[in-house]
C-alpha cells in the first residue's frame, strides 16, 4: 500500500466516503420513490453537494451544533442522525425522528447537535448564534455551524447574524453552500458582491472560498476555521462552490438551466467520483473496498425504506400532543 498523502487516515477516509455515499443513496432513492408518489409533501435533495456537509461535519462532535436549511438531509446524515429515523420522518411515520410531525424540512435531533432543517431560509443563523453563545457561557468549547444557500445569504437574518457573531465573538462558522441557484434564480444576478469573502471582510471576519465538490478542500478549510472558533478566535465564513444534481425540489423541470449543464456537472463535478478517484489513484483505498461500502449503504437505505413503509402512522391523539411542555 502506498504512503497516505491525505490529511486523514484510511479509516477516516472510509468514514467520509461512507457518509457521502449514504447521503447520495438516500437522495437518489427519494428521487425515485417521490416520483412514484410514495412520499407526501415535497423534498429538496442534497445530491451533488455531499462533500460540503461531510468535509465540515468530520470536525464536529455531538456537543457541536448545526442549523440546517430546507435542503437538510445531507447535513442530518453527516451529523449522525439515524437514517432509519430520517426516512420514517419523510414518510410521515410515528417512528420518525420527529414522530412524523416535522417532515423533510424539519428533521432534527438535538441529542446529535442537529438543531433542525428549516423551512424558513436564513432562520438558522440567529439560532446558531444562540447555540454558540450557550457553548461560550458554559465554556464547553462547542462550536455552531449554520448553513445557508446562496439564496438565503441575502436574508437579513443571515447578515445580522454575521454582525452579532462578530460583535459577541461567538464560535460560529457560517457556511454558504453556493450551488448557483436560489430556487431558479441565478446567484450571479441575485447576490450583489462578487465574492463572499468580501462580505465576510465587511463584517470583520475571515472568509474562505473553496471548491465544494472537493472533499479535501472543504475538510482542510473547515478544519482551520472550526479550530479557530473553538479556540475563541471568533466567527468565520466558508463559501463552498458546489453543484445541485436535481431541481430546487423534486418535480422541478429545471428549464432555467443551460442546455447540457446537468450532464456536464454530473460528468465532471461529481464529488463522490472525485473523492473515489483520488483515494484509489493514491493507492490508499482499493476500488473493491469502496464497492463493498456501496453495497452496505444500498442495503441500509433499502432497509430504511422498507421499515418506514411498514411503520405505524401517527394517530389522532398525536395531533394535539407536544404543543407545549405543559399548558
Amino acid at each position, binding site marked *: 500500500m502506498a504512503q497516505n498523502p491525505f490529511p486523514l487516515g484510511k479509516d477516516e477516509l472510509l468514514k467520509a466516503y461512507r457518509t457521502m455515499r449514504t447521503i447520495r443513496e438516500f437522495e437518489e432513492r427519494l428521487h425515485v420513490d417521490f416520483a412514484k408518489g410514495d412520499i407526501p409533501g415535497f423534498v429538496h435533495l442534497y445530491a451533488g453537494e455531499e462533500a460540503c456537509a461531510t468535509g465540515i461535519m468530520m470536525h464536529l462532535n455531538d456537543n457541536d*451544533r448545526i*442549523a440546517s436549511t430546507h435542503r437538510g438531509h445531507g447535513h442530518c446524515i453527516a451529523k449522525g442522525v439515524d437514517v432509519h429515523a430520517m426516512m420514517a420522518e419523510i414518510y410521515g411515520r410515528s417512528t*420518525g*425522528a*420527529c*414522530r*412524523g*410531525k*416535522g417532515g423533510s424540512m*424539519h428533521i*432534527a*435531533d*438535538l*441529542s446529535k447537535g442537529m*438543531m*433542525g432543517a*428549516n*423551512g*424558513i431560509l436564513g*432562520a438558522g*443563523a*440567529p*439560532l*446558531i*448564534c*444562540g*447555540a454558540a*453563545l*450557550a*457553548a461560550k*457561557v*458554559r465554556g464547553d468549547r462547542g462550536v*455552531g455551524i449554520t448553513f445557508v444557500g446562496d439564496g438565503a445569504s441575502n436574508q*437579513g*437574518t443571515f447578515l*445580522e*447574524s454575521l*454582525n*452579532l457573531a462578530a*460583535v*459577541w465573538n461567538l464560535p460560529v462558522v457560517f457556511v454558504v453552500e453556493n450551488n448557483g441557484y436560489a430556487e431558479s434564480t441565478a446567484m450571479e444576478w441575485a447576490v450583489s458582491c462578487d465574492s463572499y469573502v468580501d462580505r465576510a471582510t465587511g463584517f470583520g471576519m475571515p472568509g474562505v472560498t473553496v471548491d465544494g465538490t472537493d472533499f479535501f478542500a472543504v475538510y482542510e478549510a473547515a478544519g482551520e476555521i472550526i479550530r479557530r472558533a473553538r479556540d475563541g478566535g471568533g466567527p468565520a465564513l466558508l463559501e463552498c462552490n458546489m453543484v445541485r444534481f436535481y431541481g430546487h425540489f423534486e418535480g422541478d423541470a429545471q428549464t432555467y438551466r443551460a442546455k447540457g449543464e446537468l450532464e456536464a456537472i454530473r460528468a465532471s463535478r461529481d464529488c463522490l467520483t472525485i473523492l473515489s478517484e483520488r483515494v484509489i489513484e493514491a493507492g490508499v483505498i482499493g476500488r473493491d473496498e469502496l464497492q463493498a461500502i456501496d453495497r452496505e449503504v444500498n442495503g441500509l437505505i433499502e432497509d430504511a425504506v422498507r421499515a418506514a413503509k411498514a411503520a405505524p402512522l401517527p394517530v389522532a391523539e398525536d395531533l394535539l*400532543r*407536544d*404543543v*407545549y*411542555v*405543559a*399548558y
Partner: protein
Amino acid sequence: MSRKISMKQAINEALDLEMRRDPTVIVMGEDIVGGTGAKGEDDAWGGVLGVTKGLYAKHGDRLMDTPLSESAYIGAAIGAAACGLRPVAELMFLDFMGVCFDQIFNQAAKFRYMFGGKAETPVVIRGMVGAGFRAAAQHSQMLTPLFTHIPGLKVVCPSNAYDAKGLLIQSIRDNDPVIFCEHKNLYGLECEVPAESYAIPFGEANVLRDGDDVTIVSYGLTVHRAMEAATALAKDGTEAEVIDLRTLSPIDWDTIVESVERTGRLVVVDEAHPRCNLATDIAAFVGQNAFGALKAGIQMVTAPHTPVPFAPSLEDLYVPSADSIASAVKRTLSPKGASPRIAA
C-alpha cells in the same frame, strides 16, 4: 417582608432573584446594560426606561447589550434556550416584533411540536406594550392577540407589581417560550410586594372584586379602568365582578365561565384592536359554553380599529376608559341591551 415597590422595580427584582438562583439565566437586549463600549458609565442606562438598572453590577456579563438587530438577538436567545440556557430577551417595545417575528412564531413556538416533543425552548421575550405614553403608532400597540393566536407561545400581561414579579419568575422557570407584556403606563404603579421569591402559576385569573350583577374581564392597564368603572357603578347599586386574566395563553376559562353563570352578564375590555382580539375570543367562548346563562348580549370595549394616534387629545380617546366600560355595563342592564334568555 413586604413593602411598596413599582412594577418596574418588581420586574428588576424578579430578574435579579432568578439570576441568583439559576446560573443558566442570562438577560440580553438593546441597552439593557446601556453603555457597552461607550466611554461613560458601564451601565449608564440599564434599559431604555431603567428596568434592568443595577443588574449589571450584580451579575456582570450575564447581562448582554446587543447590537440594534432584533432578528439576530431574539433568534440567538431562542437558539440558546434550545441548547439549555434560560435567556430573557428584552424586545424593548413589543411593536418591534415586526422585524423578528419569524424567530418567535416560526421557530421558538414550533420547535417542540415540529420536532416530535423532543425540544424545549425556555425563553422569555419581554417588552413594553400599550398606549397612553404619547409614543405614537409604532411604540404603543397592544399586540397580544397576535401572540395568543400562535400555538406553542405562552402570553402573560400583568396589571400590577405583585403579579409582575411572580409571573416573571414563573415565566423564567417555565419550559415553554413566554411573551411577557409589560404595560409601560403601569411601570410606576406601586403596590405591596414581598421581598422574597414567589411564582404565580399560569392560567389562574385573579378576581379583583366580587359582584353578582355583571362580570368584567380584562388584563393589563384596562384592569384599572374596569375597577374604576366598578367603583362608580357600585354607587348606583350595580355590583360588578372584575376579573384580571393575568395570563392570556393559557387562559383561565373556568373562572370566566363560573362568574358569567352567576352574573348572567359579560363585559370584556381589551386594549387591543377590535377584530380577533381577546375580547372577541372570550365573547365567543362564553357564547358557546355559557349561552344559557346570559341575560343580555355580551359587550366588548376595545381600542378602535385605528393605529395609535399621537395627539394626546386623540390618544386619550383611544384607550378604553372607565366611562366607556361603565356605559357598556349599563347596556347589559338596560332592557334594550338585553337579549332574550334561552334555556341551555
